[in-house]
């Protein structure tokens, strides 16, 4: 249907609609109890099946790589991780897979098939929500979306001062940041499903484990 005709039809319907009179409210930021943000974040992350760490991020990643028996990771470029992390991982024997996918369909497929079985992903995060144990991950140059999506184990490095009370608290001042990239994702724990007999299962498509290293 032509756009104008479509919109005209919607307009006529909206004018005829019998809806309660409502003004657009601003974002309601709830008045939540005062808590220690870091402690609350760690607790909430635990509730959704994630693991918090307070050790050196390089050591955390290397220990996980050792457990997984891998020498590769898919991650953010060094410049987007805290200083020294990328170099530390290389020094520890890990090599970073290239996340840049070619623009042509065949090149994309070939490139993605090269890393689709990667088991370890390493990213930073823009913010954390203490109420829900969520991290905000924004894609962009040097920050592939796949790094937080396809590996079995995802390590997120999060600055403690970036933890906010809740999504609403964060959105109050950062709503613009939600859309300031082609992709922003709020990640709340490991990938999960209850589709077989309502039993919780992790890792059906995304990471089976989410580790958040607080720095």
């Amino acid at each position, binding site marked *: 249907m032509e756009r104008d005709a479509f919109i*005209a039809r919607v307009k006529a319907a909206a004018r005829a609609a019998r809806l309660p009179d409502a003004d657009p409210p601003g974002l309601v930021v709830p008045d939540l109890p005062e808590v220690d943000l870091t402690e609350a974040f760690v607790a909430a992350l635990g509730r959704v099946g994630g693991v918090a760490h307070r050790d050196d991020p390089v050591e955390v990643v290397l220990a996980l790589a050792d457990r997984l028996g891998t020498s590769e990771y898919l991650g953010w470029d060094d410049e987007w991780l805290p200083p020294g992390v990328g170099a530390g991982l290389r020094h520890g024997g890990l090599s970073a897979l290239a996340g840049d996918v070619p623009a042509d369909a065949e090149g994309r497929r070939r490139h993605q098939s090269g890393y689709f079985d990667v088991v370890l992903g390493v990213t930073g995060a823009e913010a954390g929500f203490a109420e829900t144990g969520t991290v905000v991950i924004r894609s962009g140059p040097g920050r592939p979306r796949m790094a937080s999506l*396809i590996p079995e184990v995802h390590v997120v490095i999060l600055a403690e001062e970036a933890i906010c009370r809740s999504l609403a608290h964060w959105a109050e001042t950062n709503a613009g940041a939600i859309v300031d990239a*082609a992709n922003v994702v709020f990640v709340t724990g490991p990938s999960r499903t209850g589709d*077989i007999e309502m039993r919780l299962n992790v890792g059906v*498509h995304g990471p089976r484990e989410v580790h958040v290293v607080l720095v």
Partner: protein
Amino acid sequence: MTVTPVTFVERARQAVGSDVARSNRVGAERLAGLREAARQAYPAFDEMRDAARQIRLHTLAHLDDHLQRFADQVERNGGHVFFAADGTEAIGYIQRVIQDRRVRRVVKSKSMVTEEIALNHALEASGVEVVETDLGEFIIQLAGEHPSHIIAPAIHKTAADVGRLFADKLGVPYTDDADELNRIARAHLRRIFLEADLGISGVNFGVAETGSICVVTNEGNGRLVTTAPPIHVAVMGMERVVPTAGDLAQMLEVLARSGTGQGLSVYSNIVTGPRRVGDPDGPDELHVVILDNGRSRALAAETAEILACIRCGACLNVCPVYRAVGGHAYGSVYTGPIGAVVTPALMGLDPWADLPFASTLCGACRDVCPVGIDIPRMLLHLRRRAADERHHPFRWVAPGLRAYRIAATGPWRWRAFLGLGALAARLFGRSGRIERLPFHASGWTRFRSLRAPAKKPFRRRWGERHGT
């Protein structure tokens, strides 16, 4: 081969006591409990629901403006927008994209709106392979069935069912271990994601101010569908916009809590245009198909408020009728209380006039709705319209009420009518109760007895005492 019964009553009769209905009940009760726990754990929940309601109603009242802005912004971000008046137009557009780009394999994440327009069926008929990637939908697709719950489509399947299905269709050894079944699905679907030429997702929310779309999933398939293939097609019911990014945050605050009791779903995935210069990955093309398909009709009628629905499924989980009959009895992709309104509101009362009657009007759905939709009021409205338009599913009701009107509008006729009641009491009553009525009236006494009318009507006793 069974023939699908044509009325709700017939479908419900088949469903009651079935495995589907039983598992729907268990799942629904579980989800309702999780929601209630989440509400109690988050004191701000009710305040957030009020705000969410205001946002949705405001958006609907100015839907044309918000849609315009949304479409402009999607295009500014480098995406394509197509306005589809109905399912046929939406399918036609997607088929053109598929032909132009020589697409052979399509992956999908769970989307009610594509079920509504039977997109998979149409694409498969034109020779394209379409794979559902949500685990529940994948199971349903392999089995050749329909979803029975909005957010838990395979809620009626046991692990043993799934194990047999996977062994049969995927050629893997039989197992009924849910962990192992998940691993099998993950490995199988990973290869399919890699080969896919195009991904189709639904849209939970579109943001008018920025042209962003938000797809919410727990499994992560919604992210893979919108990241791995070179082309992403998002199909959005036209009512799904919210004005601003802050409004999106407000809606996300209530969606998962209502649906599954989670604070937030695992992934709230926000896509703003195709991948940008310098972005390492993501689709190179983005198409947003905005669908009317009866929505403007619903918006112009008493049913406008139903378009505020955010498809959380909370009303299904508390509904005594849904719990008894399960999702399949509704005969439509939209089930439960919301389906009893949405289906006739979008698709017309013919042949869906019996759905608004599939409710006890207890109001539990209204109480749990995150956007406060008054579902019972709309059910009553649709019932009245069904009667006015002579689609009333119970043929005896209208003549019965006409007969009652004749009886009740003249003193002599009324007295004679009451005399019939006294006669019935004498014929069928046993010590003050009626245990069993014959023929068409038998339904009234199948599960209970009725108090018999008094042998001497009240009017006569009143007259004798007061001498009128």
